[in-house]
C-alpha cells in the first residue's frame, strides 16, 4: 500500500517546552517525522512553542508556528493553514491531549482535517485507565485488580475491594505526576487526595499494588495492513514501584525465557489491535510476578515516547520516522531499513550488545525534596550506554552521568557509601534513590549474598550477580600493581567496564599513566557497530560504540573529520539548547565539506540520531572515551564549545592543537577571576566590585569591602549550581559550606571544589541583559542579539524571561552593551560564540553615576557580570527570533571561515549599510547604532519564557533565585512586548485571567514597578487584594485596594491562603523578600501552586503581564508562521515600543 495521495498537507503537533517526563525525545521524533514527510512531498505544518528544538528550525517544516500549544491557538492555525490531516502522535502527551481537545471542540471536523496515527477512540482507550482495563479484560489479558473513583468516599470503597497495598494514579496526566502508593489506610487518604487533585478530570484509578514485580516494556509498531513488529524489549533493573523514567533499564530483556517473551509479544500486539492503533509505534508495559511468571499489562502509549526514542537509539530502528510514514499509508515492508540499506523495516531488530539507560536527577536543585524515587517521575535527563555485556554498559552509563562517578564505585565519591555499616547500607538500599545502584555494588562487595540483596530490593538476582562480577574483580585489581598487569588482566578489567579513572583511583596512580601502561600491554578499545541485525547484514551506517574485543569496524574517511562533543545527559542548566548547537554545527560543517563525528551519550537527542552526522559514537563524554574516539578518527579538530560545560571541561585534557575555535587558554582567562578583572580594567568595562575567596574568612573580607548583599558562586558551573545571594555573615557562611568539599557540589566532584569561590557585590534592582555574539579570526564581531531580562538581576538568567529586542533599554544603553561585547570578544580572541551577561543599573535621575565609558549619556550604568566564550542557552532563541543560524555560523568560524565569507555564501545577510564591518584594527565604537543588530529590525518582539518543575517537587519553594531550576523554555512572538509576554505565559502553561481579583504582596524593591502594574490592573477593571505594606503603597499611589489581607499568623481578617483556597483570587503576584522570614510567601506561593493559579514572583513580570492584558482588550494575539516573520524581517525598520499601555509617570 503506497503513500496516501488523498492528503497533501499535515499538521504535526510538537510537545512544547521541556518538562520532567517530556523532554527532547519529542524533538528527535518530531524532526524525523517532519523531514520524512516533506521528503515524501507533503506540505508539513508544525506547531511547537519550544524554540530550542531542531524541529522548529524554519527549514524543517513548510510552515512553523512557534505559538502556544493551546487548543484555541491550534484551532486558529488549522483555520489558517487548512491541513488535510493532523498527526498528534509525535508530540507526547501534549500532542494527544490537544488532539482530543480539538476533536471534542469539533475543530477538525469543521475544517475537514483528519486525525492520523491514532484516532480519538484509540487515544481515549489508551489514556482512560478504566476503558483501558476493560479493553484488556475483553481480549483476555491480565491486569492488576482495580477500580476508579471521582471522590474520596468512593475511593475508600474501591480500596477496600482491591485490598492494600494499592497504587493510586490520576487520569490524564503525564510522567506519573500525582501518582502514589499506599500501604495503610492513613497513607491512602493522603495519596488519594493528591491524585484527585492532580487529575484534570478529578479521577483516580486505585489498583492492586504490584510493587516489587519485574517490569518490562515492548516497543511495538503496526501498519495499516496489520503487520506488527517488536522493535525492542526493555527490562527494568529497578522493579515495579519506581517510575520507568526513573528506573535503570536494560535492552534487550535479560531474564525472560522465550515462551514468556513470546507471550508478552503476542499480548503487546493484541493490545495495539484492541486499542485501535491503526498505524505507528506504541509502547506496552508489563509487570511479571517473579515467583509465578504471571504477566499483567500495566499501560500503553499509542504514540512515540521517551522509551521509543531509547529503543530507536538502542537498536538503530528509527521508530518516529517509520511511524510517520506508516501514518500516511505506507506499510512496513515498503520502507527500507536505513542501516542495512537492503532489508525492509518489517523485521525485528536483534542486538549483539547490551544497552543500559540510567536517569539523571536534579534533587540538589530542590531543597526539601526527599530524593526518594517512586511512581512519579522526577529525573530531568538520562544517559544510554552500549557495551558488549551488561557490566560494561552499566559502568559506561554511570560514568556518562557526569556526576563525578568514574563507574560503579571505585572512585572518590564512593566514600559516602563506605561510611555506612552493612545493616545501614542494606536498609538504605531498600529505599529506591539515585544512590541505590552504588549501594548494591557495595553490599555485594562486602559479601552480602545476592539472595539477601535481591530480597531486600527486588532487583533480579541475574543483575546482582553481574554486578558482583565487577565487585569480585576489584580485589584482584587492587592486589596488583599497574605494572604487574598482563594483557589478559587488562582485557578482563576493561571488558567489565572499568574506566582508566577507576583503575587509577584503585592504584593511586595518575590516569594518564594507567592509560599508557594499558596501551603498552596492547589493550585498546575496539569500535563495533549498531546495525539492527547482529552483523547478519552489512551495515552502511557508521553508528559505533566502544568495547574491548578483537576487531574494529571503523572505516577510513574520505574527507577531513571534525569531532563534535555533545552535551551529555539533560540536566537543569544544560539541556536541549546545547544539543541544538551541536546539531547545527554538524549541519554547517557537513555542508562545508567535512565529515562530522558526533560523540554523545544522551538517547533523547537529535544529535544522537544516526543520520544527524556522518558518524555517531554513542560514548560517555569523559577524557578517556573522547580520547579513544579521537584516536580512532584522527580528526582535524574537536569542537568543545557548543555542548555546554560538559565538553568544555574536557578541553584542557585534549591536545590543544585539536581544540577548534576559542583557545582553552582564553576559556580559562574568562573563568580566572584575577585575570578577568585585569582584562575588564584594561579595556575600561565596569564590573560590580568583588573578589575571590577559598575560605569563609576570606569571603567575609570581600563582603566587608564591597558591602552586602553579595552574590556567591563557584566558577566552571552552568545553571547557577550552588549560587546564592546572601545578605549577612551567617548566610555567607552557609553558602561557603555548600561549596566546600562536603557540600553537594563537592560530592559531585565538581572542579569548583578546587577553585576559589567568587564573591561579588549584588546589584539590587538592576536589569539583566544577555548578549550572544560571534567573532571570526580576522577580528570581526557580529552581535547576534541583545536580550533584556524581564526578571531583575539576581534571578538566574536561565530562569528569567527575556525579550528581543530589549523592551525598555534605550538605544544608547544597547550601544554601550554592544561596544563592551566587542571589546571582550577582541580581548578573549574569540573564534566562534561569545555570551556576555550585563547588569544595567538605572539611576533614578536619569543620569549615570559613574564615569564608565559610554554610560554618562545613557542614564544608566552598565556592568559586566560574566563572559563565556562558548554557546549559551539562548543561542536557539536568538536564531529563531532573528532568522540567523548563529550556531552554524559559529561552527564555520571555528574552522576558519570569516563572517565576510559567510555573507557571500548567503548564510548571513549582507552587512547593514549603516555599519561597516569592523576589522581587528578598528577602534571599537562606543556609539554604534543598533541597526547593526540582526533581527531587531522586524516589526515584532520575541519573548522567551521558562517552565519550572515545581509541581514535581511539592516540598520545594516555588520562588526564583540565582540557582537555575527551570527545565525548559517557550518562545512567543507578537507585535508588542506585552502581547508577546502574555502569549509566552500561555505557552508556558500560565493562563492569565481576563477578569477577577489580583492579589499583590511585594517586596519593597518591587513596590514602585508593582504600583505601575496595579494601575493598569485597576484601569482594566480587576479588583485588587494586597497585604498591608503593599496596600499602603498602592493606595498611596491612588490605586484602590478592595481587600487588605492579613498575615498568616494574625487572628483577625482573612489571610492570603484562605482567599486562594476559597477561589477568590485569580492571579497571585508575590515577590519574595530579599531576607528575613519567608514563611508567608512560601505558603502563599505553595497555595497558588496547589490551586493552579498563575503566579508572578517579580514586579517586572507583573508589569509585563498587566501591559499584555491591557493590549489584549483591543486585539487578539497574532498567529503567524516563523517563515513569514523571517520573510518580513528586514523589510521594516520600525522598532516596537516599550511595554504598551504603560504610562511613564
Amino acid at each position, binding site marked *: 500500500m503506497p503513500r496516501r495521495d488523498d492528503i497533501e498537507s499535515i499538521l504535526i503537533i510538537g510537545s512544547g517546552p521541556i518538562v520532567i517526563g517530556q523532554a527532547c525525545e519529542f524533538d528527535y521524533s518530531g524532526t524525523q517525522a517532519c523531514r520524512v514527510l516533506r521528503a515524501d512531498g507533503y506540505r508539513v505544518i508544525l506547531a511547537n512553542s519550544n524554540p530550542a528544538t531542531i524541529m522548529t528550525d524554519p527549514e524543517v517544516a513548510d510552515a512553523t508556528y512557534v505559538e502556544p500549544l493551546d487548543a484555541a491557538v491550534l484551532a486558529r492555525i488549522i483555520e489558517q493553514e487548512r491541513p488535510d490531516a493532523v498527526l498528534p502522535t509525535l508530540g507526547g502527551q501534549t500532542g494527544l491531549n490537544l488532539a482530543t481537545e480539538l476533536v471534542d471542540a469539533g475543530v477538525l471536523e469543521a475544517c475537514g482535517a483528519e486525525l492520523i496515527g491514532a484516532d480519538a477512540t484509540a487515544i481515549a482507550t489508551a489514556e482512560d485507565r478504566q476503558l483501558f482495563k476493560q479493553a484488556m479484560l475483553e481480549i483476555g489479558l491480565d491486569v492488576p485488580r482495580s477500580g476508579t473513583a471521582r471522590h474520596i468516599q468512593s475511593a475508600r470503597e474501591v480500596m477496600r475491594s482491591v485490598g492494600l497495598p494499592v497504587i493510586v494514579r490520576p487520569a490524564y496526566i503525564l510522567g506519573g505526576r500525582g501518582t502514589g502508593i499506599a500501604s495503610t489506610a492513613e497513607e491512602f487518604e493522603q495519596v488519594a487526595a493528591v491524585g484527585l487533585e492532580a487529575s484534570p478530570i478529578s479521577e483516580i484509578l486505585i489498583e492492586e499494588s504490584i510493587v516489587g514485580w519485574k517490569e518490562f516494556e515492548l516497543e511495538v509498531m503496526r501498519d495499516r*495492513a*496489520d*503487520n506488527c*513488529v517488536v522493535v525492542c*524489549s526493555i527490562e527494568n533493573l529497578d522493579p515495579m514501584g519506581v517510575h520507568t523514567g526513573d528506573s535503570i533499564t536494560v535492552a*534487550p*530483556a*535479560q*531474564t*525472560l*525465557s*522465550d*515462551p*514468556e*517473551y*513470546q507471550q508478552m*509479544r*503476542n499480548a503487546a500486539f493484541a493490545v495495539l489491535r484492541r486499542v485501535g492503533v491503526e498505524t505507528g509505534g506504541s509502547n506496552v508495559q508489563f509487570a511479571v510476578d*517473579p*515467583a*509465578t*511468571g504471571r504477566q499483567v499489562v500495566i499501560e500503553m502509549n499509542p504514540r512515540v515516547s521517551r522509551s521509543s526514542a531509547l529503543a530507536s537509539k538502542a537498536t538503530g530502528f528509527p521508530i518516529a520516522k517509520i511511524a510517520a510514514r506508516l501514518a500516511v499509508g505506507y*506499510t*512496513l*515492508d515498503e520502507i527500507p531499513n536505513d542501516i542495512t540499506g*537492503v*532489508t*525492509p523495516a*518489517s*523485521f*525485528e*531488530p*536483534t*542486538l*549483539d*550488545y*547490551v544497552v543500559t539507560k540510567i536517569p539523571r536527577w536534579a534533587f540538589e536543585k530542590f531543597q526539601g525534596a526527599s530524593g526518594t524515587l517512586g511512581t512519579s517521575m522526577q529525573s530531568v535527563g538520562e544517559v544510554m550506554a552500549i557495551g*558488549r*555485556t*551488561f557490566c560494561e554498559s552499566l559502568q559506561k552509563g554511570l560514568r556518562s552521568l557526569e556526576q563525578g562517578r568514574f563507574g560503579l564505585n571505585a572512585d572518590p565519591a564512593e566514600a559516602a557509601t563506605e561510611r555506612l555499616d552493612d545493616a545501614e547500607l542494606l536498609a538504605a538500599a531498600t529505599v529506591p534513590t539515585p544512590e541505590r545502584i552504588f549501594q548494591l555494588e557495595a553490599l555485594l562487595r562486602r559479601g552480602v549474598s*545476592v539472595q539477601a540483596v535481591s530480597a531486600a530490593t527486588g532487583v*533480579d*538476582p*541475574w543483575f546482582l*550477580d553481574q554486578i558482583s*562480577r565487577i565487585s569480585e574483580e576489584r580485589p584482584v585489581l587492587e592486589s596488583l600493581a599497574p605494572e604487574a598487569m598482563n594483557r589478559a588482566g587488562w582485557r578482563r578489567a576493561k571488558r567489565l567496564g572499568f574506566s582508566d579513572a577507576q583503575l587509577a583511583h584503585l592504584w593511586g596512580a595518575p590516569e594518564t599513566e594507567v592509560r599508557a601502561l594499558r596501551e603498552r600491554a596492547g589493550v585498546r578499545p575496539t569500535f*563495533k557497530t549498531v546495525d539492527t*541485525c*547482529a*552483523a*547478519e*547484514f*552489512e551495515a552502511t551506517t557508521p553508528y559505533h560504540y566502544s568495547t574491548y*574485543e*578483537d*576487531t574494529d*569496524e571503523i572505516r577510513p574517511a574520505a574527507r577531513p573529520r571534525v569531532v563534535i562533543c555533545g552535551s551529555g545527559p539533560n540536566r537543569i542548566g544544560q539541556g536541549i539548547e546545547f544539543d541544538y548547537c551541536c546539531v547545527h554545527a554538524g549541519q554547517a560543517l557537513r555542508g562545508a565539506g567535512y565529515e562530522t563525528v558526533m560523540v554523545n551519550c544522551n538517547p533523547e537527542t537529535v544529535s544522537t540520531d544516526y543520520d544527524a552526522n556522518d558518524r555517531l559514537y554513542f560514548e560517555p563524554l569523559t577524557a578517556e572515551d573522547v580520547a579513544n574516539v579521537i584516536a580512532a578518527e584522527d580528526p582535524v579538530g574537536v569542537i568543545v564549545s557548543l555542548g555546554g560545560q560538559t565538553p568544555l571541561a574536557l578541553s584542557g585534557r585534549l591536545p590543544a592543537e585539536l581544540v577548534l575555535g576559542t583557545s582553552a587558554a582564553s576559556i580559562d582567562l574568562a573563568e580566572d577571576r584575577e585575570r578577568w578583572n585585569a582584562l575588564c580594567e584594561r579595556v575600561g568595562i565596569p564590573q560590580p566590585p568583588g573578589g575571590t575567596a577559598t575560605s569563609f574568612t576570606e569571603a567575609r573580607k570581600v563582603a566587608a569591602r564591597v558591602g552586602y548583599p553579595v552574590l556567591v558562586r563557584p566558577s566552571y558551573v552552568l545553571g547557577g549550581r550552588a549560587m546564592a545571594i546572601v545578605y549577612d555573615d551567617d548566610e555567607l557562611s552557609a553558602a561557603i559550606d555548600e561549596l566546600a568539599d562536603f557540600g553537594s557540589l563537592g560530592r559531585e566532584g565538581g572542579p569548583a571544589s578546587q577553585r576559589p569561590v567568587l564573591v561579588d557585590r549584588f546589584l539590587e534592582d538592576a536589569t539583566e541583559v544577555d548578549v550572544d555574539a560571534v567573532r571570526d579570526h580576522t577580528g570581526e564581531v557580529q552581535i547576534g542579539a541583545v536580550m533584556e531580562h524581564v526578571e531583575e538581576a539576581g534571578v538566574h538568567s536561565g530562569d528569567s524571561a527575556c525579550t528581543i529586542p530589549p523592551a525598555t533599554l534605550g538605544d544608547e544603553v544597547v550601544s554601550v552593551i554592544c561596544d563592551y561585547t566587542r571589546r571582550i570578544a577582541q580581548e578573549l580572541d574569540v573564534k566562534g560564540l561569545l555570551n556576555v551577561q550585563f547588569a544595567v543599573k538605572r539611576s533614578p535621575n536619569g543620569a549615570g553615576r559613574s564615569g564608565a565609558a559610554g554610560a554618562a549619556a545613557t542614564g544608566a550604568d552598565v556592568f559586566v557580570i560574566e563572559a563565556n566564550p562558548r554557546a549559551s542557552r539562548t543561542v536557539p532563541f536568538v536564531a529563531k527570533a532573528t532568522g540567523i543560524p548563529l550556531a552554524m555560523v559559529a561552527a564555520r568560524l571555528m574552522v576558519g571561515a570569516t563572517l565576510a565569507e559567510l555573507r557571500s555564501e548567503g548564510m548571513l545577510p549582507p552587512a547593514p549599510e549603516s555599519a561597516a564591518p569592523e576589522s581587528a584594527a578598528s577602534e571599537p565604537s562606543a556609539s554604534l547604532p543598533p541597526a547593526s543588530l540582526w533581527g531587531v529590525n522586524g516589526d515584532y518582539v520575541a519573548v522567551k519564557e521558562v517552565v519550572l518543575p515545581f509541581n514535581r517537587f511539592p516540598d520545594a519553594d516555588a520562588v526564583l533565585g540565582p540557582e537555575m531550576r527551570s527545565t525548559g523554555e517557550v518562545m512567543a512572538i507578537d507585535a508588542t512586548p506585552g502581547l508577546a509576554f502574555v502569549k509566552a505565559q500561555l505557552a508556558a502553561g500560565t493562563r492569565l485571567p481576563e477578569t477577577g481579583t489580583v492579589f499583590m504582596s511585594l517586596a519593597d524593591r518591587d513596590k514602585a514597578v508593582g504600583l505601575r502594574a496595579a494601575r493598569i490592573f485597576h484601569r482594566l477593571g480587576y479588583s485588587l487584594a494586597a497585604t498591608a505594606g503593599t496596600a499602603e503603597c498602592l493606595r498611596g499611589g491612588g490605586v484602590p485596594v478592595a481587600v487588605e489581607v492579613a498575615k498568616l499568623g494574625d487572628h483577625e481578617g482573612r489571610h492570603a491562603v484562605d482567599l486562594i483556597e476559597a477561589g477568590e483570587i485569580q492571579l497571585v503576584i508575590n515577590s519574595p523578600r530579599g531576607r528575613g522570614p519567608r514563611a508567608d510567601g512560601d505558603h502563599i506561593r505553595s497555595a497558588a501552586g496547589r490551586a493552579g493559579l498563575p503566579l508572578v514572583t517579580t514586579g517586572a513580570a507583573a508589569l509585563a503581564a498587566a501591559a499584555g492584558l491591557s493590549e489584549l482588550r483591543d486585539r487578539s494575539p497574532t498567529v503567524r508562521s516563523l517563515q513569514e516573520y523571517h520573510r518580513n524581517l528586514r523589510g521594516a525598520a520600525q522598532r516596537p515600543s516599550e511595554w504598551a499601555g504603560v504610562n511613564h509617570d
Partner: protein
Amino acid sequence: MTAPVPALLVLCDGEIFEGEAVGAPDIEVASGEVVFNTVMSGYQEVISDPSYAGQIITFTYPHIGNYGINGADSEAARPHCRGVIVRDLARRHSNWRATGSLHGFLRRHGIAGIAGIDTRRLTRHIRDAGAMPGAFGTADEATLLAAARAEPGTRGVDLVSEVTTSTPYTVGAGPRRVVAYDLGIKSTILSCLGELATVTVVPAHTPADEVLARRPDGVFFSNGPGDPELAEPATEALRRLVGTVPVFGICLGYQLLALALGGRTFKMRFGHHGGNVPVRCTATGGIEITSQNHNFAVEPGSVPGVTETHFCLNDSTLEGLCVDGADAFGVQHHPEAGPGPHDARHHFARFAEMMDRRRAPA
C-alpha cells in the same frame, strides 16, 4: 569459581579466536560446521534442536544462560549440536521456570562450549566467507586447525539418520490422525500437531506404504539437519504420498517436498538462523516475523506444478509452496516457533482444514 581454562576456536580457513572452555569439561577438540544464530532468547530450544546436528552454534547475543534451563523448553531429549560458542555464559541464572543452569545442561549432555569469544567478529567472518567447518577446545592451534580442515561439516553426511527415531511412537490426543516423519523433529512441532491430532511419529526411512497402512488423515514431514539431497528415503515416500493424503512439510520436510516434485535445492552462504525473519505471504501480502533455521533453500522457479506462496523479504529466499491440485504444502520457516515468534502458527490450522476437507465428503 574455578580459574578459567583457556581455549581456542580455529576455523578451517585459519581464523583464530581466543576464549575459555565452558560446558562439558576436558574437551580438547570439538568440531563441526560453524553457524550463527541471532535469537536473543530461546538458547535452550536452539541448542536442543536436532536440526543443528553436525554444527557448532554461535550465539550473536552476548549473554547466554541468563534464565537457566527448564523441563519444558527442550526441542529433543538431548542436544545434537557439536558445540556452543558464546560471548558470555551466565554464572547465575534467574527465572521462576528454571530447573538448572545452562552450564550444567551442557556438561550433562557432553556438549562443549567456548566463551569469551568476539562473536561479532566471528559472525562477520561467517557472513562474508560463509558457514565453514571449525574446531574449538583446549588443544593447541595446530591440532584444532587440522581438526577443522578434516571436518566435513554438513556436506555429504547423512545427518538425518543420526537424529531420527529408531521406532515409531505416538503423541498427542487430537481428533485427527497424523503420521509425522521424524527427520529430526522438534517437540514444539509435536505439541502443535498434538493439539490437532493423534500423531504417530515414524523413522525417516519409513516407506510410504507403511504410513498409508496407518490410514492417516495427513502426513507431516519435519525439520531436520543437513543436505536435503541426502534424505532420499523420505523424499521417495513424499513422491508417493503427495496427492494421496494431505501433506505438510516444515523446513527440511518442505525442501524434500520440493525435491520430490522435481525441484532443486542449494546450499546458502550462511543460511538463516534467527527469530526475526520477515516472510511475505504472496496471497494476502501480509508479513509474518518467523523463526528460521536452515542452511539449504529451494531454488525459486525450480519446482514444477506448485504455487510459490511465501518469500523472505530480506533476501527473496523462497519460503513456502503449495502443490497445485493436491493437498500438500510446505514452509521453509518454523511456524511452530520454539524459539521465536508465533506469527506463522496458523499453518497448523491450515493443515487441519486440509485434513478435514478430505475427511468430510462435500
